[in-house]
């Protein structure tokens, strides 16, 4: 309480001083000739605006130097490079306009500050000038639109799926506050989902139709596992409210909606290990993490996050993303346990013992409801 009181008193003192100085200034200016006063203040403020230009530009340059390297992580997907190059081109255009217009604006302000014998120049319009600054932006914008739409077409060219023999498909269904990550299993086909009272239940939130033979080997994963160089289709949805599927390193972002499936297609460029190797050459990542004692890059991991406000724990919907080679992926799929045979119908499990002991908790604490049912089945 003592510090609060002190802060309040300091603040009151601070504002009182400003007030008193300001009133004193007003009093002293009243004695002056109006023109002279205007000349003085305009001179001061004009110079301050010019100083603002110089110092502001220096601050902008410094911020690029200091924060620029942190702006975006290195792109880890193929289409990510398209996005980044479009981003960089736009940055160049934007910075050029930003710097140029600010130099002109604030230099004019400084140059034409009030002088009692200066005459303003009556200059109401000039069609030629106005035409120039309509057409030049139009040309630049056409270029940006054209390039942007070209990249956009490529990113959402779903025909690629048909022309590619092997596509990794996974299904991410968001809910408060976690992700249900479903893989199609060894057969590569998802079991059908039917959203009705009969199919949707606490242990079958997705409403998977267990009659569908494709459903039997579908499994739920704790982390998102992707294959380097393989075209990947994320099939997205949500259970309760809107969520956003966001893989910052892969430049993947798409909302997840209940009752309205969405999708996003991408190809990872590096395995997690390769990406770590790249990071190990970067200054920021060479720093020692005080918690682990290791250089930061050693503990690096790709992540999945939510980008659509979904409730109080929106900020905590994290999952680890791992990019591996095809062999490692196949081995992982082999190890993964079918959801059907571990949770829904363990008795029917083909000749494996104690599967329940190794059940993968599909959603940690969030799925405690489902897990408690698993426990009861046990």
């Amino acid at each position: 309480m003592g510090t609060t009181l002190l802060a309040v008193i300091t603040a009151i003192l601070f504002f009182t001083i400003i007030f008193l100085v300001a009133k004193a200034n007003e009093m002293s200016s009243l004695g002056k000739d109006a023109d002279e006063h205007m000349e003085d203040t305009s001179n001061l403020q004009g110079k301050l605006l010019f100083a603002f230009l110089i110092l502001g530009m220096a601050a902008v340059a410094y911020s690029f130097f200091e924060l620029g390297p942190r702006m975006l992580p290195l792109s880890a997907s193929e289409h990510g490079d398209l996005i980044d190059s479009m981003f960089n081109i736009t940055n160049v255009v934007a910075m050029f306009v930003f710097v140029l217009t600010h130099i002109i604006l604030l230099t004019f302000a400084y140059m034409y500050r009030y002088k009692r014998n200066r005459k303003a120049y009556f200059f109401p319009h000039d069609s030629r000038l106005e035409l120039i600054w309509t057409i030049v932006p139009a040309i630049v914008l056409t270029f940006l639109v054209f390039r942007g739409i070209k990249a956009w077409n490529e990113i959402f060219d779903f025909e690629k799926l048909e022309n590619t023999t092997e596509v990794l498909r996974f299904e991410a269904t968001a809910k408060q506050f976690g992700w249900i990550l479903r893989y199609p299993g060894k057969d590569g086909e998802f079991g059908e989902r039917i959203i009705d009272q009969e199919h949707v239940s606490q242990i079958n939130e997705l409403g998977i139709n267990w009659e569908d033979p494709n459903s039997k080997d579908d499994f739920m994963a704790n982390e998102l596992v992707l294959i380097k160089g393989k075209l990947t289709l994320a099939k997205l949805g949500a259970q309760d409210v809107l969520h956003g599927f966001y893989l910052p390193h892969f430049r993947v972002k798409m909302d997840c909606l209940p009752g309205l499936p969405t999708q996003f297609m991408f190809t990872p460029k590096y395995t997690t290990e390769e990406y770590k190797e790249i990071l190990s050459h970067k200054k920021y990542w060479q720093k020692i993490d005080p918690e682990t004692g290791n250089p930061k890059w050693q503990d690096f991991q790709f992540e999945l996050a939510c980008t659509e406000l979904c409730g109080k724990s929106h900020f905590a919907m994290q999952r680890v993303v791992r990019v591996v080679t095809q062999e490692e992926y196949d081995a992982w799929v082999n190890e993964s346990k079918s959801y059907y045979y571990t949770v829904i119908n363990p008795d029917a499990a083909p000749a494996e013992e104690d599967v329940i002991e190794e059940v993968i908790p599909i959603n940690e604490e969030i799925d405690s409801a489902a897990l408690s049912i698993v426990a009861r089945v046990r």
Partner: protein
Amino acid sequence: MSEITANHDSAHAADGHDDHHEQSWLTTYIFSQDHKMIGKQFLMTGIFWAFVGGLLSLFFRMQLAWPNETFPILETLLGSWAEGGKLSNDFYYALVTMHGTILVFFVLTAGLSGTFSNFLIPLQIGARDMASPFMNMLSYWFFFAASAVLFISFFVQTGPASGGWTAYPPLNGIRDIALNKGSGLGFDLWITSMTLFIVGSTLGSLNYVSTVINMRTKGMSFTKMPLLTWALTFTAILGILAFPALLAAAGLLEFDRLLGTSFFLNNIVINGDLQAYKGGSPLIYQHLFWFLGHPEVYIIIFPAFGIVSEVLSVHSKKPVFGYRAMILSLGSILVIGFFVWAHHMFVTGMSPAIGKVFVIFTLLIAIPSAVKVFNWITTLWRGNIRFTVPMMFAIGFVSLFISGGITGLHLGNSTVDIQLHDSYFVVGHFHIVMGVAAFFGMWAGVYQWFPKMFGRFMNETMGYIHFWGSLIGGYMVFFPMHFMAGVPRRYYAFDQFQSFNNFQDVNVFITLAAFLVMSSNIVFLINFFYSIFKGREMTEDNLNPWGANTLEWTTPVNPGHGNWPGDLPVVYRWPYDYSTNGNEINPQNKPLEEGEHEH
């Protein structure tokens, strides 16, 4: 209607020609039908909300800067919302939601266009009052009721709305506090408040447009109207066309919440329990919302455009450059502004093919915006610039509008938006371009017309302190956010993610800068309220202190209800005859000299 007409007539008859019409305290200060008083009421309410909204942002900025610290003062102020001096995540989202709602609607819509449309339209076009003074009064009281309801929602046990100012369903579409605390009674009040707000805003807008069309004084043709009046008229048209979409969305949303309809809901599964909603689409809500939501940013920025055009011209003693191009660009922004809404939805599940159309329109709208900027800059060229406080804010506005607008090139391009959508880059962009910039327009207007409103001047020194603190502080808050282009917005804390936790130093810096902005605005508040009562007085021999051409400066120091004691002024020339005919100023009501041509 007959009652309204009667009222309107009586306002003219009673107040037109003499000022000795008796008004009680209640009808002068509270239920006033004088457009000037109503304008001031909007301004006062707007300032109140700006202070509240700003304070809320300081609370959540403290959480972002020091997520692991506790501040006993927070518990003192917020009680159970900040137990142990740490903001709860529930209340963090309520603060963010209310901050957005308050600033967008209550401050920058009602406080900005409400204040200046009411105060200035009749004065600038030479009318005694609005077309319907009664409806005008009603528009303020609807706004007041909306304010009261929203304010009350802070004191609901489950807290105010907390599902974002965009109020997307299903988070806000299901009345279940287990889903989201603020989606209970708090959100009902939010919807009630928005409904009242829209009614008030529409009443006001209809009135502004009717007034401008019908009540211009003799000689005030459309091409002689000041750009500010043009801008305010376009603002009103935008409001009339756009707000009903939000009203519809809010209504349907409340049906979903209370009556179990499924306009925006489909296949909702909560904890493995399939809900009965079937067949709706959350995307339809988003379309309806942004059909208002995007024109809304022009509703916010147009009055600032107008104010800045006026102020730049008056204080550099030059005609605003390209008067017709300025009107034309406003008009094209108004039209194109209705075809860009879905650029808020590039990655929300809308078809990528539709996205392309919106990329084209969105970048197209940058052309008239660029024209405006270049025209403002050219207005300064070879002027004789008096750096009064309103002029400083107008120049600050141009700077901010460039800085914030230019990043629209990134966000309007759907490809880049994949990465930037819902990131801090967006937060930086829109706060500069329609937050700080619009505020600068509003402040420029307040400093410029304060003498007209209260017959006194604000203190200059405090004005400059306010300006520099806000300009430097504003940039320090929002410029660094652009570098957080990969960091999602609306995160209570970043400790769950390795990818996002490397900006702690920046977050501290931003929060400190936010305190700087708040401090400079406390200086403004002190100046504003002190000057109303004790500021330097405006005298009858200096009725036109800035040397402006427009009609509002031809009224007495304290214009009564009816504005001009004698006949209405007659207009002979456009408002920008500065530094011509050998005179620095040539007021609009000064007849053309022999051989002089109209501009």
